[in-house]
């Protein structure tokens, strides 16, 4: 990132914090509620975006995140309900995510199926399978994940409630954001991953096994979506219902593009999407504006289109060069 851009970023962040503080001073509970809602809605999107990002950085488009969420949510819920352990449910959800990731890799990398079709297969299969096997008499039996206060940090005004009094998978997601950032941009694995997404031929000539690494990365990324599914069923909602992912897997892709395929960028974008949801709820709760809820609900999508269009026109946003292409060893 250029120094100039960095300055803008810091200035923008400072401005945001200032504005948040002003609102907090004006109405504490409301500001806290909106920002807590923001962080909450952002978690699932951030996990989905990281899943998409690792795939795309390696050159594999994953539009099956929606299906990966749904399938993992179903498995996490079922296992947690059977064993009475949220932890085992979460592990099973992540495991299902890995399997779904492996399936995508097997189709898109192994069998060289068109990547869009492979992702669509996952989505359709997940919807069909979970709907068929869903047992409506089953309930979690135990409560969902509850908030854990991080010691004195949780007592801080505003920030304490918003960031440091969260359920466990949210903390895990925040930690994973840092981990994925470091791995992608500071490790050998990350460099190789970006290489096979940009120029698989060149990577191959220096001895990187392109197909093997793509296989591995898409599978690992599936695990992140699996964590997202577990989060959805066991932390956000506390039950399973059909098609409960509600398009968030696709939204995660928008978040990923908006965030320029970087973990922190994606988290910022996810927070933005979460914020618009929380804000439109707040408008209604306060009964301040008489505008249709659908209008405000539409805003994040409009902003995404504008941002992507402007970045595209200015040439500052580009996809990995080998994105969506199958690689044949030459």
């Amino acid at each position, binding site marked *: 990132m250029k120094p100039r851009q960095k300055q803008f970023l810091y200035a923008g962040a400072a401005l945001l914090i200032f504005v948040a503080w002003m609102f907090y001073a004006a109405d504490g509970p409301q500001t806290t509620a909106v920002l807590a809602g923001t962080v909450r809605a952002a978690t699932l999107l951030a996990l989905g975006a990281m899943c998409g990002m690792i795939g795309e950085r390696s050159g594999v488009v994953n539009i099956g995140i929606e299906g990966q969420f749904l399938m993992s949510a179903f498995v996490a819920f079922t296992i947690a309900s059977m064993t009475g352990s949220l932890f085992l449910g979460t592990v099973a959800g992540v495991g299902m995510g890995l399997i779904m990731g492996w399936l995508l890799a097997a189709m898109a990398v192994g069998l060289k199926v068109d990547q869009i079709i492979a992702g669509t297969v996952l989505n359709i299969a997940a919807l069909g399978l979970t709907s068929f096997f869903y047992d409506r008499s089953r309930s979690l039996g135990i409560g969902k994940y509850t908030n854990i206060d991080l010691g004195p940090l949780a007592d801080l005004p505003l920030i304490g409630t918003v960031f440091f009094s969260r359920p466990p998978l949210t903390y895990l997601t925040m930690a994973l954001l840092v981990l994925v950032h470091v791995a992608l941009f500071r490790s050998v694995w990350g460099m190789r991953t970006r290489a096979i997404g940009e120029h698989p031929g060149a990577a191959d000539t220096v001895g990187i096994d392109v197909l093997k690494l793509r296989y591995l990365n898409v599978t690992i990324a599936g695990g992140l979506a699996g964590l997202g599914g577990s989060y959805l069923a066991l932390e956000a909602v506390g039950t399973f219902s059909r098609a409960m992912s509600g398009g968030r897997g696709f939204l995660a892709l928008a978040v990923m593009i908006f965030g320029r395929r970087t973990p922190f960028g994606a988290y910022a974008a996810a927070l933005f999407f979460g914020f618009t949801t929380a804000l439109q*709820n707040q408008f209604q709760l306060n009964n301040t504006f008489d505008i249709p809820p659908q209008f405000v609900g539409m805003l994040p999508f409009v902003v995404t289109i504008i941002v992507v269009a402007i970045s595209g026109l200015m040439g500052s946003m580009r996809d990995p060069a080998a994105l969506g292409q199958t690689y044949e060893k030459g």
Partner: protein
Amino acid sequence: MAPKRRHLLALLMVLGLVTAAACSSDGGGGISGGYSIGLVTDTGKVDDKSFNQSAWEGAQDGAANIPASATASYIETEESKDYANNIQLFVDDGAKIIVTVGFGLGEATIEAAKANPDVMFIGVDQWQNEALPNLAGLMFPEANAGFMAGALAGMLTETNIVGAVLGTDLVPPVVFFKEGWENGARYTNPGVQTISTYHPGGLDVAFGDPEWGATTARQALDQGADIIFGAGGATGNGALIEVAGEAGALCVGVDSDQWFTVPEAHPCLVTSAMKLIDVGVAELISQAYAGTMQGGNYFGEVGLAPHHDFDSIVTDEMRDMLAEVMAGLADGSINPMPG
């Protein structure tokens, strides 16, 4: 094989075919009384633990109650563009009674009723502007149900803030529930603050988004609401479960007694604003079978579900007040949606 035996074999095969054909027409035709009832859901599912499920249970009850050995079956609508096709599938299949569930299927049901005058149609939550002889719209005074629940909430709230997490305002019954709920709360507690939210999405997602329901319920709890009405299929169920995790907060379910459909909500569920959809559907099926069904609008019953674990916190005074409210709603002296 000798030519003679070959002929015999051919003859046997033809005989077999004829027998099979005769059998199949016997089973599927109307002569031996294969009376079938079809139900088409809205984009929700028959196991949504709420609206569609209630209608499906009603259809099964209705099928069991009528003298003919009737069978009920359903089609779940995946996308709203399939409404007409799904209804047509039952028409082609020879269904005698077709139940369509939800406001969204209104137009498709009217079209189908006009095209098939011999088939009886029951449209749940579908207001009929003009009466067709073979189509009954099963309507409910949702505002009354919401008003009763709101009246109870107004008396129970300690923070004087009551919240509602709702499906979409594109569906009139949801709006009636909300307006009734808010007015009911104000009726018993003039100082109450009502905070309500509709799902921002379209018909396709508004009733199937528990994550939004849970997040929104939390947002309302965070600003002081201590009793929350979750009305909107799986979306509302998400809200109920979220409230269940908050010590001391109460929740109110919708459509059916959600004590039985959302066990996760037991720690907070004080009542449900019920539309007795199952009773209404079963009753209309009996009427349709007997040939006494009137076209136009049929009004079903609404009511409050039992308080279950929270029976002790509803005092006698509150019960008297509720009885008064119910009487007022019944005789028209209370208007649940003024203005």
